[in-house]
């Protein structure tokens, strides 16, 4: 299937206008010797029908689709109202690019402005950007930002920050003279405050932690912020489960300076890890150090309100190597989906959804930890996921559950060597009581 729009006649006439004798002539500036002298070795072109058969065939190889799953850990299975899919698929949203020309991009720009407002409301902070790639790169950008703000070169990273996020932070900071020190966790699953106290010093740019953390446990955000501030370091909170902000107090009201995180829960399907939505908000004094695009409100000559991209002197296309980030293309359509999602759920709906997550997870924790031999690993309060200690190796438990059509959780040993047979179990509003009970029954059979 070709997507060209030229007839043979068009091609011939247009070629004539260019003065080239042939299509090949158009490429005369490419040295003969490197030009490809054979057709590409790719599969033959497919019509739409063949493509559908091929690609749906690949989809059928994902056995995951048929299973009852309790996976979370940074990617969540939430309800998405159909209106989100419908509206976000309109060509006028899908097919433009960055709103460089505001007069013909007011749709996109106003959506970004609303998105920024919603992120500020969710996080309790003053300003937000238009998006970053995802939660993991958001965490890395936040660390670099803290370095710029504080001019300090050490960052304390909670071990309960998503393991993959920590790896990304490490990759980003490697060549920037920044040192990362990991801070462990206690029996409650929260950041080890003694260890944190010991590590905080006048070189510390920031304490970066996740809440709810990778174990699902809600951190003592105010306490961590106070500790960071006492050392004149920034408090950076990562929120990998953005829905939690529907119920938990806004981090900005608990002393946090920068909140960044993953917005996938807000209207994006899990989609094997992407496209997702990195969000970031901060106090207004850090505005000039914020990475990424920002939309602002202004007026035209007649005084009519309009929106533009603004403060772009922070950005790579103006500042080049001194930019606050190298990001250019961001996750705009994901931010649009999140905007529609949040506005559709609204004040009551988002809270209700968050509350149902917490209630269902609490119910599941009760049911599962009542299985003989199964225990809650951590004592701390949790949102919609929690860690279970299991009496048998996770591999065996996992296989046993799988045989019953269930993906029961995510085994932690690869990411936390020495943690033993422990698994992270996530329960969203989409899991019914029946499904939770089914998991409990299955687990009982598998571990007995």
């Amino acid at each position, binding site marked *: 299937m070709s997507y*060209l729009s030229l007839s043979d006649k068009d091609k011939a006439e247009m070629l004539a206008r260019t003065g080239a004798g042939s299509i090949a002539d158009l490429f005369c500036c490419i040295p003969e010797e490197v030009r490809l002298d054979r057709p590409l070795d790719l599969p033959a072109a497919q019509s739409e029908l063949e493509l559908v058969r091929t690609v749906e065939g690949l989809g059928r190889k994902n056995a995951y689709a048929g299973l009852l799953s309790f996976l979370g850990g940074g990617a969540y299975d939430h309800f998405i109202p159909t209106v989100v899919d419908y509206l976000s698929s309109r060509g006028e949203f899908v097919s433009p690019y960055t709103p460089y020309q505001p007069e013909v991009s007011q749709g996109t720009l106003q959506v970004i402005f609303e998105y920024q407002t919603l992120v500020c409301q969710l996080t309790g902070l003053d300003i937000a950007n238009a998006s970053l790639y995802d939660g993991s790169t958001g965490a890395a950008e936040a660390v670099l930002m803290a370095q710029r703000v504080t001019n300090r070169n050490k960052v304390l990273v909670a071990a309960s920050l998503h393991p993959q996020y920590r790896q990304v932070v490490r990759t980003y900071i490697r060549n920037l003279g920044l040192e990362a020190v990991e801070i462990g966790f206690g029996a409650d699953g929260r950041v080890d405050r003694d260890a944190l106290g010991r590590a905080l010093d006048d070189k510390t740019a920031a304490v970066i932690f996740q809440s709810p953390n990778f174990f699902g446990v809600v951190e003592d955000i105010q306490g961590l912020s106070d500790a960071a501030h006492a050392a004149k370091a920034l408090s950076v909170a990562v929120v990998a489960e953005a829905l939690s902000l529907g119920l938990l107090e806004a981090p900005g009201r608990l002393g946090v300076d920068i909140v960044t995180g993953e917005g996938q829960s807000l209207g994006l399907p899990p989609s094997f890890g992407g496209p997702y939505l990195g969000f970031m908000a901060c106090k207004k004094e850090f505005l000039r150090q914020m990475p990424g695009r920002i939309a602002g409100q202004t007026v035209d000559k007649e005084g009519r309100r309009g929106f533009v991209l603004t403060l772009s002197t922070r950005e790579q296309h103006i500042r080049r*190597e001194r930019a606050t980030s190298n990001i250019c293309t961001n996750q705009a359509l994901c931010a649009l989906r999140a905007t529609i999602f949040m506005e559709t759920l609204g004040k009551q709906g988002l809270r209700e959804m968050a509350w149902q997550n917490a209630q269902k997870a609490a119910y599941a924790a009760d049911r599962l930890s009542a299985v003989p031999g199964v225990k809650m690993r951590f004592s701390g309060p949790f949102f919609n996921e929690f860690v279970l200690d299991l009496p048998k190796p996770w591999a065996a438990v996992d296989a046993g559950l799988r045989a019953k059509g269930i993906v029961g959780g995510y085994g932690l040993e690869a990411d936390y060597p020495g943690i033993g047979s422990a698994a992270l179990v996530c329960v969203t509003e989409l899991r019914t009581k029946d499904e939770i009970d089914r998991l409990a029954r299955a687990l009982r059979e598998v571990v007995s």
Partner: protein
Amino acid sequence: MIKEIREPLIFEISEPGKRAAELPVLDVPAKKDLLAGVPLRRELEGFPEVSETEITRHFTRLSQKNYCVDMGLYPLGSCTMKYNPKINERLAAHPAFAASHPLASDDLVQGNLEVLKKLEGFLCEIAGMDAFTLHPAAGAHGELTGMLIIRAALEARGDARKHVLIPDSAHGTNPSSAHICGYTVREIKSNDKGTIDLASLEEAMTDEVAALMVTNPNTLGVFESDICRIAEIVHAKGGLVYMDGANMNALTGIVRPGDMGVDVMHINLHKTFSTPHGGGGPGSGPVGVTKELAPFLPVPVIAEKGGRYALDFDRPGSIGRVRAYFGNFGIAVRALCYILSLGPRGVREIAEFAVLNANYIRKSLEGEFHLKYTTASMHECVFSDKLQKEFGVTNLDISKRLIDYGLHPPTMSFPLIVHGALMIEPTETESRRDLDLFIAAMKAIAREARETPDLLRSAPHVTYVGRLDEVAAAKFPVLRWEKKP
């Protein structure tokens, strides 16, 4: 007199108690002491309350204030605004992919892994590189990844070196990405053909230089004809060649970076392989490397054995992870679909007709607008406002006036080496009629610039808002709605 059609902010139409979505009643016993001791919010202060009718109307009306590729030519240079096939959207949204979880174990997501591996293979063939990673989330992220690979490779040789050479025509992401990798940027001046000056390069290329970042065709739409020689110069001094492949749309099936001495490159899937730009993203910026550099690719790498796929984390040389999970997977699905649809001939035709269309526009507008560099154009051409300046008309005025003609303006004021630049990239999916509409509009505007320049300076005239005060926006930033006290 005629009513201005202004769309309020959603917050301005919110009223307590309205709902656009509901959930089933909780089906487990509700705990009273839920999250005891944890500070909870009383309410989502400021969050809107509207009905589904209002949501639909709000976003329908907002969408109608956008111009988009689905409406017509979008000749935004360097951005490759080609048509995005609808079937690819449908397939990427298929629940078999969209509902699959990134932490599911390999055996449950063999289809996903095959999608990624297949696409890597296709990109290797198209780019002539030995290995690709699909982790990077966009072009700039690919640059960062690629430059980290270069640094890791040089470190493994014993010296990461200090500088990176970047032509003055380069995209801003290049220096910015190099900077995050701990390199200082040395700018290379372009010669009068708009390409890298070999003498300057030879002079700048010392053994403190880690790499050259070259965009080919460069941001003028000009092919770096000396690319092989350039690579030799860099390699001779132990440096590596990074190619910014954002402009691959000019090359597919014609020539392969890997055959021209490139060591590392990125491709913008959202450009060359037609995934929609979404008002600014998401994109995807896969990085291709030579065999020698493959050990440094980010983890995980997808390994195939006998038709089974597995994630390989055992890569001691790896630069590490650059993003959680596997990059923008959904974008990879779309790009795979695109390549499968086009086949070998179709992929070659991308370049053939992108270049034909650009040259058709160039030839049609030469004389009307100034062309600083007259070197042969590939997929785009960069005019300037030099001829219009004498009537007090700038590239901004020309751009805004194009809007009145129902068209999107070109990229403005980039590359920086062309003052008052108008960078025009039509892409291959355009029809003759749409190209001709653009050419006719540009010609009319050239005439208007002479005859009625005020019409241009006050443009656009057909939009909901006129030119917006960008200075005020930056000086007194209003970056969010706030409830009137």
